[in-house]
């Protein structure tokens, strides 16, 4: 939503991407088909070495967005540019070739690794599809390198996934993503299933790899604390729309959208001295996305909603380096967490 000063050409750019799902079939008399806008005109830019965090609660569209920008789901509209080229125009085989540059790490390290394969096979499999990346005679050495890179032992190459803990499996998943030397990695809840002591190891590993390899991350997570820790910029979604976006510190310290304020305020702080702080308890639940509320989709739960919020969809208001989709964004008191 904002145009940050361009310091570096974007590696990955998403423009007004949209994913609608048609619900049911047209009626006998040609009744209209209802559509569910899972992702509603979302735009963002990823530069080399940058992490964009994507947060929001269940059903906000963050995973749909991830699948759509990876072209695992075909978008309904918009553009996804990789070094300026719209990947949505690519044929199936061209897209296949491009995938090596954009990899993904999933949440569940248990189901995303084939249990019948050794770690060596899991890590070398991508080179069957892209033989040019690592010449055959160097593959053995590269497997050892990759394992060392993610903090595992080269001797682990002959073991099977079940012989590893959850944190170690996630490291294998990361090593597999790195095997193709990508520029962009989409981390879809990549550390969410891990215990906190192990989660910290993997978060540190991701940061370290980024520093060394200049990777760009789209980091999708429901854990706001982790997102604050790892992201340079952050995008907050609600009912398929971006409601706020900006540099991480700006958004976390001066959230402008009432939803962002409530979301940040709801996160528990591990400090008993702060338990008496004011918190915002949101009323009600996220509405059914098939029947989104009129005007601003957040208005039924918003403490600041006025008549205009029920009537007109709010514009995006740019506030310094951040932007919020709220009629009152420039007038609300900032509630820091």
């Amino acid at each position, binding site marked *: 939503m904002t145009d940050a000063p361009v310091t570096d050409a974007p590696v990955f750019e998403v423009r007004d991407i949209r994913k609608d799902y048609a619900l049911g079939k047209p009626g006998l008399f040609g009744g209209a088909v209802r559509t569910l806008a899972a992702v509603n005109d979302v735009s963002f830019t990823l530069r080399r070495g940058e992490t964009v965090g994507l947060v929001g609660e269940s059903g906000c569209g963050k995973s749909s967005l991830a699948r759509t920008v990876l072209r695992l789901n075909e978008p309904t509209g918009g553009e996804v540019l990789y070094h300026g080229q719209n990947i949505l125009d690519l044929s199936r085989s061209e897209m296949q070739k491009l995938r090596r540059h954009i990899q993904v790490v999933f949440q569940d390290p248990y189901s995303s690794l084939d249990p019948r394969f050794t770690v060596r096979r899991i890590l070398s499999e991508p080179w069957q599809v892209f033989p040019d990346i690592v010449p055959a005679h160097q593959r053995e050495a590269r497997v050892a390198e990759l394992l060392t890179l993610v903090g595992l032992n080269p001797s682990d190459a002959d073991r099977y996934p079940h012989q590893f803990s959850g944190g170690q499996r996630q490291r294998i998943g990361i090593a597999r993503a790195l095997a193709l030397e990508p520029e962009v990695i989409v981390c879809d809840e990549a550390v969410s299933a891990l*215990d906190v*002591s*192990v989660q910290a190891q993997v978060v540190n590993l991701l940061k370290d790899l980024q520093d060394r390899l200049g990777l760009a991350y789209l980091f999708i997570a429901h854990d*706001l604390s982790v997102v*604050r820790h790892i992201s340079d910029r952050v995008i907050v979604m609600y009912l398929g729309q971006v409601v706020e976006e900006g540099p991480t510190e700006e958004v976390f310290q001066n959230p402008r959208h009432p939803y962002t304020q409530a979301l*940040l305020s*709801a996160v*528990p702080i591990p400090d008993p001295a702060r338990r008496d702080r004011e918190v*915002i308890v949101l009323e009600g639940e996220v509405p059914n996305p098939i029947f989104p509320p009129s005007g601003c989709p957040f208005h039924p739960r918003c403490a600041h909603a006025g008549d205009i919020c029920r009537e007109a969809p709010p514009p995006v208001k740019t506030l310094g380096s951040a932007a919020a989709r709220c009629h009152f964004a420039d007038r609300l008191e900032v509630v820091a967490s």
Partner: protein
Amino acid sequence: MRAMQPSETLGATPAPLLDVRDLRVTFETPHGLVKAVGGVSWTLAPGETLGIIGESGSGKSVGLEAIMGLIKTPPGHVSGEVLFEGRNVLTMPERERRQLRGEKIAMIFQDAMSALNPSLTVGTQIAEVYRLRRKCSQAEAERRAIELMDRVKIPSAKTRVGNYPHEFSGGMCQRVMIATALALGPQILIADEPTTALDVTVQRQIMTLLAELQREDGMALVLITHDLGLVAETVDRAMVMYAGRLVESAPVSSLFDAPSHPYTRGLIRSMPRIDGASGALHAIGGTPPAAGRMPKGCAFHPRCEMRVDRCRVDRPVLRPMDRDHFAACHIAKETPRD
């Protein structure tokens, strides 16, 4: 609205409501006997909020399941004593124990959706507890169910009482489970990761509700969780479990201000914080030991940066660090007091 209020625990320590002594849980497995909980002792005061923190496999849930009588024997074996109103719960006849469950001690779980019966309306499920135990009429039970749904703030309870669990969101299902747990007015509510599957704004709603209910009824709450933030905001006293044992127990402010056990310190330092006060994350190296492969001596020693030779051999026991603050560590230092 304030963050959760601590319940008042001023004055002399009252007699414990629940007194757990040397609780042990083992399981028979194809690979031999596996210790899930190895000798844990703690007490719970009336109205107190106690937090049990631990990562996967630490034994935090299994211990409470054993107290509730939810461990099947075999393969499970439970020993030790759990005293409630002076009687050992573990040796009670099943009929009496069932009476105790729900009536005096109730439990709610992480996955409310699957804990509820999908083929019965939520009203029936809430009313059933009441109808069976209180032997009241169908109409009276339904009236009571609506009352309980109002109490846990399910909107338009009168119409929703006839809905099925799949017609509710995760947060609403958790409210239904809380209503069921509250039906008979228990003195203790055990909540096992009650908000882990929920979104953070819904978690806030549920935790606010629990604190309110507790304030109104004076019931004690045992919160089992992996989330240090929830513990910091909710409980009076916290216990940290690692590899089936208690490694630290303290009033919550003391635990966060002066964590004594290297594992507790590691947990606190490895957690990113929403208020940005975390800086670099200090991960704890290694992983928790697999059940059945417990290291000798202190179970944490392979991951501990401060270990000394003794840690590999002697298992440390809980010893006092400060007022009501205990840690099981050879090298932890007592807090000097004037």
